[in-house]
């Protein structure tokens, strides 16, 4: 018992090495996290536009159309990885992609969008993070696909890869939205 106490650090370290080893050899494959929100109505949300805080956009106004909600932040390296995928997605499909700028600095967010390009049809700002809490966002990026009835049909935790976009998002969208507008 008394000896066991001194073995704890070794055990913790072994676990850590295991994670590092797996992480090192792991090909980054992104999967789906089961979420209780999927197949339910998206929690009501309404947020000010990033560059026009007088105007707000929310779930009510978006009823009746498909949209993709991507939670990101300029502080988030994984979002940076995901960013080119979203840029391509925007260029090759005509679904509305709304960016929720989460707990971010407005200036940093704008800097990011000008520098790296803006993949969003609309960018709203969730400075306090309330909406993200309602959406059950644990860490950025997270991406939701919402149907015209306001139901979340798919939720992706972590970055969207080109394959995810093809299979999980485009696959669920009606064909006219899945290709770019003529």
């Amino acid at each position, binding site marked *: 018992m008394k000896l066991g106490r001194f*073995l704890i650090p070794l055990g913790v*370290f072994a676990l850590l090495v295991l*994670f*590092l080893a797996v992480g090192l050899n*792991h090909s*980054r494959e992104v999967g789906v996290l089961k979420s209780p929100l999927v197949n339910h109505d998206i929690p009501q949300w309404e947020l000010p536009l990033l560059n026009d805080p007088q105007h707000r956009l929310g779930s009510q106004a978006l009823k009746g159309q498909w949209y993709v909600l991507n939670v990101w932040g300029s502080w988030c390296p994984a*979002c940076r990885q995901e960013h080119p995928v979203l840029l391509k997605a925007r260029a090759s499909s005509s679904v509305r992609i709304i960016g929720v700028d989460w707990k971010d600095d407005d200036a940093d967010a704008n*800097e990011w969008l000008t520098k790296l390009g803006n993949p969003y049809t609309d960018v709203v700002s969730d400075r306090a993070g309330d909406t993200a809490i309602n959406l059950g966002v644990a860490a950025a990026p997270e991406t939701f696909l919402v149907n015209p009835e306001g139901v979340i049909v798919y939720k992706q935790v*972590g970055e969207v890869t080109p394959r995810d976009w093809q299979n999980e998002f485009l696959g669920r969208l009606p064909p006219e939205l899945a290709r770019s507008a003529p």
Partner: protein
Amino acid sequence: MLPELGHFALVLALLLSGLQAFFGIAGAAFGRSRWVAATSSAVAGQIIMVATAVGLLVYAFVTYDFSVLYVAQNSNSALPLLYRVAALWGAHEGSLLLWIFLLALWTLAVALGTRSLPQRFKARVLGVLGLLSFGFLLFTLATSDPFRRLMPAAPDGRDLNPLLQDPGLAVHPPVLYTGYVGLAVAFAFACGAMLEGRMDQDWARWTRPWTTAAWAFLTCGITLGSWWSYYTLGWGGYWEWDPVENASFMPWLVATALIHSLAVTEKRGLFKSWTLLLAIIGFSLSLMGTFLVRSGVLVSVHSFAADPTRGRFILAFLGLVIGGALTLYAWRAPLLKSNAGFELTARESFLLFNNILLVVACATVLGGTLAPLIADTLGQTALSVGPPYFRPTFLLAMIPLLALLAVGVHAGWKRGNLDHRTRGILLTLVVALVLGGAVVLGAFGGRHWLAVTGMTLGGWIILSSLLDPIDRLRRSLSLPRAVLGMAVAHIGVGVIVLALTGVESYTTERDIALGANETARVGGYDFTLAGTQPVEGPNYSATRATVLVSRDGALITTLYPELRRFWVQQQERKVAGIYNRRGTDLFIALGDDLGAGRWSMRAQIRPMITWLWLGPILMALGGLLALTDRRYHLARREATAPAAAAGERA
């Protein structure tokens, strides 16, 4: 020919470090005094070989030897001399060589600076250090040889990463690495004690100054890095909780805990196994920092090597060194006994809480840093945890720590009677509260409870740390350097707390777009763009803006922010224009050319930022004062005679 000589020097250094490890550890284990004596010779030989290799690589850089791959990748004929030398640690291979060189220097310092240590123990310490050198040299030679030739030689080099072409970054890595590697000494002392199966107050007294020195270097290194990112990354951020920043911050937190727990072990013979564990963890984290940076397992702007072979090697090495040390710990630590007790208000209790809170803070940072990795492994997703996580969790551990600090410095050992200082502690608290409240409400305006808390805590720590030195001077008592050093370092903590509060609460920043002779008002200052002009540097072309800053119509200063485009790598780098006015930085960085003479810019008014750089300097200075305390040198002289006698017997 010369680069081959450098490679050969590294091979010899590898052999010598192997001998050093063998003679040191086996010599002590089997009691062979001749083997023990040979350890120091191996140390001397190794430093000569490593220094030769470093010298030859620097020479290759200085003489533009583009037949060496590493030089061709990280230098250019237009690169100024300072950066040709600093390019040594501009990428992976050279950074490793620097690491090895610094480890050899610390080893030499231990060999020369510890004449009072018993011979056997010293041999063990040098042996463990030799083992570390061996691992790093093997890694370098097997996966990252800096002397690899390029056939045929490149006509010109690909240039040093423009972000690194800055005086701040020329010094940041060596200082930080000196701190990282310095923790190896504490680690080796801990392993030495565990191999010996004995650990006493003398051990703590030997280990303490080395740990303090490494900690002071870490403090300076982290601050230099933060300062550099503040003025060159262009947008005025000084700490982003980037994985690599965290990698340097975690060993610092543990080293801070370690220097405090060493104090308890030295004075009271307590916390023995805990101190050993901290010494192991501190160095483990600095090794892991290397791993995280080098292997590319974490996504970060800093990582410059993403090669799984290297990652695997480092991981195996990490597993052997840390796993070995922790196994030794599990075996030996239960043998260490301390029977002394202490009361709740004794200094021991305060230092115990200090340790717990620092380790908790470190654990939260570690959790946040590894969260993406763990999520990736378990849930197969990539995600990031940023400042929204780090800031509140870190504050949660820091606020109680700071409050305990202001009280704890007055607690005595063992009994901890605080009565004689109760008045002083309360008085300084009241004064700090009044001053802090006045500053927040009066000078800055706005009432934010966190700002009042920060200002009060910072002021309280400073005032409270002054009590003891002032009291000693008034009563004409001696003021040992250890006491003075502690006060100075703690005042540094207070200064940092004040600075962070001021900067975080009262920074005004705005993105502005200005055409020629247009003015924007930011935080009471008027920024006027007088014009822009092209400027040619040695290896870059730049746009330099002339920005007039005035307040109430009176010109304060003219700033010249630059946007540099480096020729070879076609990469841009900003150099912000900064003017310091009574501790407040007026900051302007040039953004993008909007056409027709208009530019986007970011203007910031950052109050108290100067204090943010001053605080860590005070902390490091405090450490320096403490480690030059007389008792470490007296002890050395007293101990020389019996140690020499013991050496003869052995």
